[in-house]
């Protein structure tokens, strides 16, 4: 018995060591460099537009950290991004790039809206129903794309993009139908019923000094932990990652990659959709008619990339992006364009995309040294 325990400790320690080594040696340095580059490029833009980058970044920082209320807002902004980040990250583990998170988010939001307006139910049950509706909508939205890929060989990036836009116009269409549309004009839907909202109780809101403080972030954290659990502890996780890492060996080992794809893509769709539901139920309360895509899905791609597709990392990357979005929205107080955040984030994504060639070169150089 004692020997068995020792064996376990050794392997647990090794696992921890290997995981940290994995995280540290492989992706983190490049991600940090990418982030620094992002800020550098942003700084160049700010400077050429006549702003002091130091002043702007200071304002960005203080807009987030100087008051607890601001931190809460950053968290509120971050919540949907954690979900869409998880969606993209999980999908990526299987080798599928979920660029359809945008559309899945929208249909999730839409489904939650409909249940939130039309259904009359007691508070907790109502929330659960909305989330289930959202998850189902998201699952359907990505399951169809999976079918198109498996059965018809249609490239999923293309299908996802088409479905993103179909979702976008579907949302605008549904908003304008009579039962959903806001009474008395305006370009939006009715608000969802009180029972469907996930706001924190009034007393807690008073402490946080924010009327939109919601427990969505808790749901996001639960989701992240659940995905982490699936990936590291379940047979589904074993399958998903095996297919993503080596589809040939997976086939040889008897893994059915089609079935795995259906399950994994549906799950991804559900995650992005839940992001939409949580955004609706915790923050916006209604869906407006949009002139352009909101971008939560695409921002989720950034989150997943910064987190190197690690589920727990998505929480932190989501918080980072949420803080950037919120802080960025305050930049217009010093007359600096909020779009600087898009520029910074776009640069980060670009640099992370390029970075893998550096990693390849570095590891090859190290390996050559080893061989000699």
């Amino acid at each position, binding site marked *: 018995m004692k020997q068995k325990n020792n064996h*376990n400790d050794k392997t647990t320690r*090794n696992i921890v060591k290997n995981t940290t080594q994995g995280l540290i040696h492989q992706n983190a340095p490049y991600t940090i460099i990418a982030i620094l580059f992002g800020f550098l490029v942003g700084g160049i833009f700010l400077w050429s537009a006549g702003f002091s980058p130091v002043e702007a970044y200071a304002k960005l920082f203080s807009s987030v950290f100087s008051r607890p209320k601001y931190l809460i807002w950053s968290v509120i902004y971050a919540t949907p991004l954690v979900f869409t980040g998880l969606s993209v990250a999980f999908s990526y583990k299987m080798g599928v790039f979920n660029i359809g998170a945008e559309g899945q988010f929208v249909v999730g939001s839409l489904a939650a809206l409909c249940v939130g307006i039309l259904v009359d139910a007691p508070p907790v049950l109502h929330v659960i129903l909305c989330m289930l509706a959202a998850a189902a909508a998201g699952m359907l939205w990505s399951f169809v794309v999976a079918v198109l890929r498996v059965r018809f060989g249609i490239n999923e990036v293309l299908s996802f993009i088409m479905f993103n836009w179909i979702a976008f116009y579907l949302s605008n269409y549904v908003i304008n139908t009579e039962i959903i549309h806001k009474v008395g004009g305006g370009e939006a839907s009715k608000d969802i019923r009180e029972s469907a909202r996930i706001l924190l109780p009034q007393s807690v809101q008073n402490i946080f000094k924010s009327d939109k403080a919601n427990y969505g972030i808790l749901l996001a954290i639960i989701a992240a932990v659940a995905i982490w659990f699936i990936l590291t502890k379940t047979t589904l996780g074993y399958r998903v990652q095996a297919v993503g890492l080596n589809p*040939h060996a997976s086939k040889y080992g008897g893994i059915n990659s089609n079935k795995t794809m259906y399950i994994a893509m549906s799950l991804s769709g559900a995650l992005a959709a839940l992001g939409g539901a949580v955004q609706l139920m915790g923050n916006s309360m209604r869906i407006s008619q949009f002139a352009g895509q909101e971008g939560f899905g695409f921002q989720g791609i950034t989150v997943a990339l910064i987190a190197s597709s690690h589920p727990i990392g998505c929480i932190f990357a989501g918080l980072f992006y949420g803080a950037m979005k919120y802080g960025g929205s305050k930049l217009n107080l010093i007359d600096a364009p909020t779009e600087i955040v898009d520029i910074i984030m776009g640069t980060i994504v670009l640099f992370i995309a390029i970075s893998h060639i550096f990693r390849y070169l570095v590891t090859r150089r190290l390996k050559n040294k080893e061989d000699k």
Partner: protein
Amino acid sequence: MEKTSHIDPNVVAVQMTDIVKKFGNFVANDHINLTVYKGEVHAILGENGAGKSTLMNILYGLYKPTSGSISIFGSPVHIENPRHAIELGIGMVHQHFMLVEPFTVTENIILGMEPTKGMTVDIKKARRKVLELSERYGMHVDPDAKIEDISVGMQQRVEILKVLYRGANILILDEPTASLTPQEIEELINIIHNLTADGKTVLLITHKLKEIKASADRCTIIRQGKYINTVDVEAVSEHDLASMMVGRDVQFVVDKKPIKPGEVIIDIQDLHARDYRGVEVLKGLNLQVRRGEIVGLAGVDGNGQTELVEILTGLRKGESGKVIIGGKDLFNADAHTLFDNGVSSIPADRQKHGLVLEYSVAYNLVLQNYEKPPFSKRGILKKDAIYKHAAELIGKFDIRGAEGGTKEVGKLSGGNQQKVIIAREVTNDKDLLIAVNPTRGLDVGAIEFVHRYIVEQRNKNKAVLLVSFELDEIMSLSDRIEVIYSGNIVGSVPGDQADEKVLGLMMAGGTKNETKEQS
């Protein structure tokens, strides 16, 4: 067939002197000399890994020799790259064609050297030149047909026209008859004839004795990187050529107690299969493996072994035939089903098919079984059980560097990676074990280890199908040797009566009867 020689013995087209090529510590070419006369058809004969492809790649500028010199038509040259080789008049027709499928024959031939009329490509002029060339050498092509619509034989002619269009005087053909029908092979030999009649020089990389006899003037034999001999093809028999190709001392002796083989575990009947181009690669193959025996499948790469194994492991679909295992016909069954019915394999490409390199050793050890108890329960992985299993196997099979099973398998040495696969498959203990090139890239110690376990499986009354390009290995391990050539089994020899010369002959397309006649 009448064969006239067009050799001009006064002009040496290609002279390669004392060529040495090393890849790290591995010597691929060991002081090889080659003299080829103008107008000659010169065959380069050798087994897999003998070094013939390396030598020709050096001539074509894909590799630089470690030492040695090359002269083309008397002028010493350093061939920098294929472009340079083309400028020198050397053209290579690769075994795997490089053709743009939706383009026409003409477009493929002129690609990169298109004639222009003003701003546009002068297709008419190109077409004319293509027809001219094809008529001159008797190569029938349809200049306007798309590559995806034409036969493999015509595709090869397009590849040859590509090099002729660029003014090649020395043509290197790499295993040209690999995917041709007998009819197409005859046509090719005619074309080669016409080329030399026009003063071109042809080098033929091949392992097929019949074609050497039918088309070549002289033949250089290379074995294990070393130059063996250059002979006048007329003056030697197929048997002689085969001898020179394989003859060497058998290196490995394995202790094998005699066992009487039991029931038939797998019965393959009349198996037909095609490759992605629609070319038949298995032409009605029959093979059986019984309990308690190691059947060695001998053959040069490219004769259908790969496709056969892929069908048996569920990675490829065959066209027709029966694969009877345990009384059930499992033709075209998937990997999972085959595994459950008693087929496991040590794949040829361990990193591509056998392992998930980024997964730990422990995870790889349960690749086929992670969903079954004790490794998981109701969808949750039981890590304790997985690591316990790993620890056992690491100890038993002496897998080094695995760190209790947690180390990423990609970080292990080749030999230890193979040990992981062997450990897994031996433990899976299926009735049939298919081992494909199981000792490729391994050092002597690891080879011995692998052989020991293969024999142990057989001693435990399991069936083993050993597919290998190493004749030594086949000869030392097999109870029965079957030779595969061009998609069929062409001969069967009991293990203890194996003679490498006879085997070599069969592997290169000759038959046992011939041997008897000649001796």
